[in-house]
């Protein structure tokens, strides 16, 4: 039961982080929150695998992803933030309050969706599927509604976190090379995105993606 309790606690934490992300206007906050999410996920991995008694490969993965997501990514993103000298998400396409309301709707949708999808057997927690779906949705919402390139990377990370979280619900783990591969991919992706943000800020003096609209077919 304790595992269940821990897992639930961590999931609720994840949920709260999602809501904070929806309402956060400062880029720094977003980066911090996504780091927190990474840390929570790493703990969740351990918790799901019977805590301290988890096999070594789980430990390896949990620690690896924890380090990457909670330490390395925030480091990249902060550096990019410093380069770009931007603090706030200005005038998002959907306001912060509205975003939170959308979050509520998304949560409801996730719960409904999860209820429609039967689970094959015992899962660590009934909350796991809805929360992971919710996290994916929140990530996508951030991607769609925010202007700054950095926030979009955050959104991407949140989506990945959601998917990762969903993966925890699987009765059987993905094989180690695949897990490592996934982690490496995401690592490389964020690394390259960081470089791109740096380039964008140099080229445009800003990382507002609203500037990135010169390639289009709309008759101007």
């Amino acid at each position, binding site marked *: 039961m304790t595992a269940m309790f821990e897992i639930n606690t961590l999931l609720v934490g994840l949920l709260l982080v999602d809501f904070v992300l929806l309402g956060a206007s400062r880029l720094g906050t977003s980066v911090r929150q996504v780091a927190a999410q990474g840390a929570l996920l790493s703990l969740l991995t351990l918790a799901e695998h019977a805590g301290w008694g988890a096999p070594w490969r789980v430990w390896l993965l949990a620690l690896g992803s924890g380090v990457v997501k909670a330490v390395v990514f925030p480091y990249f993103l902060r550096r990019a933030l410093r380069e770009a000298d931007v603090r706030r998400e200005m005038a998002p*396409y959907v306001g912060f309050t509205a975003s939170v309301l959308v979050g509520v709707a998304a949560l409801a949708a996730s719960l409904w969706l999860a209820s429609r999808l039967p689970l094959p057997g015992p899962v660590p927690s009934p909350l796991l599927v809805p929360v992971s779906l919710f996290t994916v949705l929140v990530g*996508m919402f951030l*991607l*769609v*509604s*925010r*202007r700054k390139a950095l926030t*979009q990377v955050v959104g991407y990370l949140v989506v990945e976190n959601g998917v990762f979280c969903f993966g925890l619900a699987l009765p059987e783990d993905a094989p180690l090379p695949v897990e490592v591969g996934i982690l490496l991919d995401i690592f490389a992706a964020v690394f390259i995105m960081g470089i791109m943000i740096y380039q964008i800020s140099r080229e445009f003096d800003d990382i507002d*993606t*609203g500037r*990135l*609209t*010169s*390639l*289009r*077919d*709309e*008759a101007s």
Partner: protein
Amino acid sequence: MGAFLAALGLVVAGGVASLLTGRRWRSRVAVAGIAAGSLCGLLAALRVLAGAATVALHVPWRVPYGSFSLAIDPLSALFLAPLFVLAPAAAVYGGRYLEEEHGGGAIGGVWLFTSLLIVGIAVVFTARNGVLFLLAWEVMSVAAYFLVTFEHHRDEVREAGWTYLVATHLGTAFLIAMFLLMARAGGSLDFDRMRLGQASPALAGLLFGLAVVGFGTKAGLVPFHVWLPEAHPAAPSHVSALMSGVMIKAGIYGLLRVLLLLPPPPAWWGWLLVAMGLVSGVGGVLYALAQHDLKRLLAYHSVENIGIITLGLGVGLVGAHAGLPLVALAGFAGALLHVLNHALFKGLLFLGAGAVAHAAGTRDLDHLGGLGKRMPWTGAAFLIGSAAISGLPPLNGFVSEFLIYLGAAAAALTGRGATLAAAVAGGAGLALIGGLALACFTKAFGSVFLGDPRSPHAAHAVEVAAALRLPMAALAAACVAIGLGAPLVLTGMTGVLAQLAQGFGLPAPDAQIATLRSALAWVALASLTLLAAVALAVLARRFLLRGRTVTAAPTWGCGYAAPTARMQYTASSFAQPLVDLFRPVLRTAAFGTPPSGAFPGPASFASATPDPVDRGLYRPLFAGAAALFGRLRWVQHGRIQLYLLYLVATLLILLLWKVR
């Protein structure tokens, strides 16, 4: 079959060799290849027409659903014959023409495409597999495109080529659908193994409709003809001759070939073809009347003649359905003979038009005139072509129209209801077409070759080289020969007619062919009598004028003493009464400043008759699509957030809609 394959090989070899050889030999090699190949091909075709058994070749071909099946049956041979007659004529002409116009220099792949065009047409006429047919069809169409755009530095040529390319491609799409549907219902794309006899009426009707659109586009039937009056004038004249003379016949061939594969035709197919033939015939000749450009005029006449051919086919189908073998046979025989005849006289006329354009530097009828004295050979050949296309005895155009008329008249003898209506409409339509064609070609010939030159260009024209005259002379001779030797030609068509009779469920047509042959023999007799009477009149006139004073003077100007060449009746004014009469159809736009006041200043007048189908149907359609697309292009606005939203929305919609 060996001769035929040799023909294909020689023609292609000539085309390829011309790419590889030096400037001086470029045209000669290709012309030699085409001439030699055509000779082989003609032999192969004539052998079958003379009664030899159908030759076939079937080689497996590692292409999905394809097989390399060729066969020359009488129908194929009948279409091959004009190809291999016209091709060498056009090639000899073209060799010299290109040399004079372009100095043999920058002619690029023109010969390669010419030979591909010829080979493409030949394979279309002989292919017995859908994939092979489509392949050849497209090689033919695309080669023609490159020939049409040969002078692509001119804007209007590019535009014309473009129209042609789109039209032919859209037409092909219908053919693809048709062949694949046939394959589904008939079990194979090999014509010989296709079993469509049991196809339901709805399916057969659909296939027929697809064939009419697809093949009608190539043939130039109204309303699918819009490319034709654009492309033919744009191409070099020997190419126009080939395209108009043979390539558009591929549409007729295809229609016939498919009709032979389909179940026995219901009545409405015949009526539809009669109606489309009439519309194309009358429409084509009317638009021809309103044109000022000689080659454009000829192009519209191709629409007209395709209409006549289709009318003949329609009469044939009506007869076949009504159980009137004579009607059917006369209709088919007329249509097929007209295919041959049109190839000859339209080829001749396009070559003549090319000679005129080359010598006078313009094709505008209102700037020509008086060329008959400057270019007597071209003038005489063009006159024979004009008389032939107007369907006048003793030339070949009359013979084929005579057969179609005879079919319609025979249908009018005993037909009832719709058959009778088709017969009456066919007869009256042919008569009207004939009358209007006469008006149009007296206009064309008169304003180009007769009277005084209307411009300095025309005044300084000189007769073209022998290599240009020779093909024209040969074609003119062929027009006369077929006109007088029609019974023999009909004998050569016995095999085709038997094939068609069998295909449409008619009894063996020996009796009908005998009837038609005897009628044609009478016609030939009448023609010979005519020649004798004319010869007599010539002798009488010569006799009467012998020793009398024959003087030259200015034309009687009804008292006006100082007429100028510009006061002659122009082509526009000649056609004006008819154009005016048919204004509701033609919608000719006139613009200019009329003379006014007691001492009028300079005045001007110009008129233009753009194609109504093009202007009223296709252009708005395409413009509308373009406008709609322009609005839809908003979708790609450059904002990444919305792009991601598409992704999310697609995902959610698919999940909610599809996953239940």
